[in-house]
């Protein structure tokens, strides 16, 4: 079953003159277990596409369904709940909360419904162990290396068992060795969790590790040429 179905998705931003069209008709289908790399030069619309895929931005037109639901037809709170249950995010800058420990950061998405349950804590500990930070779970982000923070972000994106994980330049700030490790970790976990994974990256190495590669150019997706 195709988890994610996008047809003729467009996104424009109003300006004082003509609207600025960033996405000019995106078509995409992704099923559970699929993984996809989206590459493209700066300003090609990668981040805009990721924001729309993550339901953080509304598209101007086109259709978007994830698990047979059009999230953009939901009200604000329903959309927040939808995002919480179905989409995991790995941000480029980690965006870990500096005042919270590794374990607490991983648990943040579970707090959308109040205090985390014991099962949530157990899953968070399991994920932290899986990303290799079992001995650092009570450390604060400032006490971790860049690679370790990225691992925490990976664990956090998975805590609610989403069907789609979106990663924005997950290895962008890492050295080659750490980037390789994070890439392998992502694929390992994606396989284990049977979810769909979309990675937006500049890194050809990371893109090469994924099953599919698409290139975004001038607001349109096409098969990657390299």
């Amino acid at each position, binding site marked *: 079953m195709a988890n994610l179905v996008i047809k003729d998705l467009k996104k424009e931003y109003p300006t004082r003159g003509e609207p600025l069209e960033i996405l000019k008709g995106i078509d995409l289908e992704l099923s559970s277990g699929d993984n996809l790399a989206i590459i493209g030069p700066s300003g090609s619309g990668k*981040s805009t596409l990721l*924001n729309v895929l*993550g339901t*953080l*931005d509304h598209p101007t037109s086109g259709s978007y369904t994830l698990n047979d639901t059009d999230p953009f037809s939901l009200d*604000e*709170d329903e959309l*927040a*709940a939808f*995002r*919480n*249950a179905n989409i995991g*995010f790995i*941000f480029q*800058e980690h*965006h870990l*909360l*500096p*005042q*919270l420990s590794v374990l*607490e950061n991983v*648990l*943040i*998405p579970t*707090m*959308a419904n109040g*205090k*985390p349950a014991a099962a949530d804590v157990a899953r968070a500990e399991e994920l932290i162990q899986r990303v290799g930070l079992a001995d650092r779970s009570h450390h604060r982000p400032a006490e971790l290396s860049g690679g370790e923070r990225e691992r925490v972000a990976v664990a*956090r994106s998975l805590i*609610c068992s989403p069907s789609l994980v979106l990663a924005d330049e997950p290895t962008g700030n890492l050295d080659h060795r750490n980037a390789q490790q994070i890439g392998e970790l992502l694929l390992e976990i994606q396989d284990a969790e049977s979810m769909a994974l979309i990675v937006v990256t500049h890194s050809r190495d990371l893109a090469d590790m994924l099953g599919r590669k698409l290139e975004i150019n001038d607001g349109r997706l096409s098969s990657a040429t390299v």
Partner: protein
Amino acid sequence: MSLLTIAFRSIKQRLFSSTLTMISMALGVTLVVGVLAIFGIVQQSFNANATLGYNMVIGAKGGKLQLVLNSVYYLSEPIENIPYEYFLEYKSQEVREQEYSGSYSYKAVQHQQVARATLVAAGVGLHSPVTAIAAIAADASVQEQIDTLYPWKRVGKYAAFTDFAIPLCLGDYVGPYRVVGTTPDMFDLLRHGSEAQYEYKMRGNGRNFEQFNQENGFFEAIVGSVVANDRGLTVGDTITPSHGSEEGDQHTTKFQVVGVMEATGTPNDRAVFINMEGFYRMSDHAKPLENEDAFGADQQAHKITDASYILPVEKREVTAMLVRMDPLYSVGIENQVNEGNLAQAVFPIIEIRKLLDLFVRPVQTLLMVLTVLICFVSGVSILVSIYNSMNERRSEIAVLRALGARRGTVYAVVLLESMLLSFMGGILGFFSGHALIAMCSGVIEAKTGVQVGFFDFAPPIPLPIPIVGSISAEFLLIPGMILLAVFVGFIPATSAYKTDVSKSLGK
């Protein structure tokens, strides 16, 4: 982990700015506690005097407020004196007879009676028995008619309506404190407190002064707590009043301190009370009379310590008297007194209320306005602090929202932070305020007679609002500040919720 943990950790994360906000809040609350304490002290001082134990003050004609000021508060200068005979109009016949027994008029009548008896006896001897009997009968009839004219033979004009009348003789000082010549009734009959429920108590082994005893004669005194603390007076010390003012000539007469009053929060704390008989026996205190020699100058030769010597009522005056009268008749008697040209009667409560309305209430209102302003400024400081922190935390809020936090969650995190800051600042300020009051308690007691300690709370604010009007305003302070924090927290919370998630995450 809970939202409270996130809020608390956020405060810790920005420890410096959070601490500054808390200190600003705490200072605000300390000020409010201070203002409420002042409000309470003023209120308590008022209450302590609202029920004086008497309902009328009678003194010389003049300003009503001045009479109350100098006879209730021992402030301002006395207007004039009123004759002692007038004071005796509020006394029973027995007391009057006793008081008049040393008077010139009493003695003159005694002389006259002796002379008339001699004449009657002579008439009886010169005439027949029938004529003699008629002469005796005629004299008895004359005597009966004359008796009704003698002041000591009748009950005082207002005595039937009077529970008690306590005289006050003012004019002397011990240091800056007023000396009040009075009778032991002042402390035997009067009570203090908001319900006039407390007796005047003396510290340690002190006691009320007596009108006369072998040990100290007429010269006993008790001192108020403020005077005792200020002048270092204890039982066994002696005081020598000065005449007319603090800088006036010092009398040679010494009074023995036999009691130091416990603090009452009344003006009595700031006065010295001496036996009225002793007061009269100090030099220049007895009223000089014209043609005094004709009545018996020999009385001046009496030693002032001579217990057998009764100062004639003609030589006595009182500055004022504190009267408790049957309320049913008090208004009528007030009118009657005021229609005369000798004295005026005032209801001190009415004058005190006028005084309060004129001076104290505006100050209290000002204090209340100040309190509200302080609360408002404290609230704004939370608002500014959290609002400013929102700029640093836009990405934090954006992450929460991207990860599925709903409107309620975002609002809860910001409002909880605001409430926590307010609560911690409030608690800090509350204890600081009370510590400040405890530290100043000595000065407050010395200046006002009102005892305050760390655990004394301000009285309720007299507002016609349920709960608010019945519990200490301080207990409403922290909940009020938290409510204010919620109110002002909505602005940064709304701003946080409106954060553009994709833009904030892209930064």
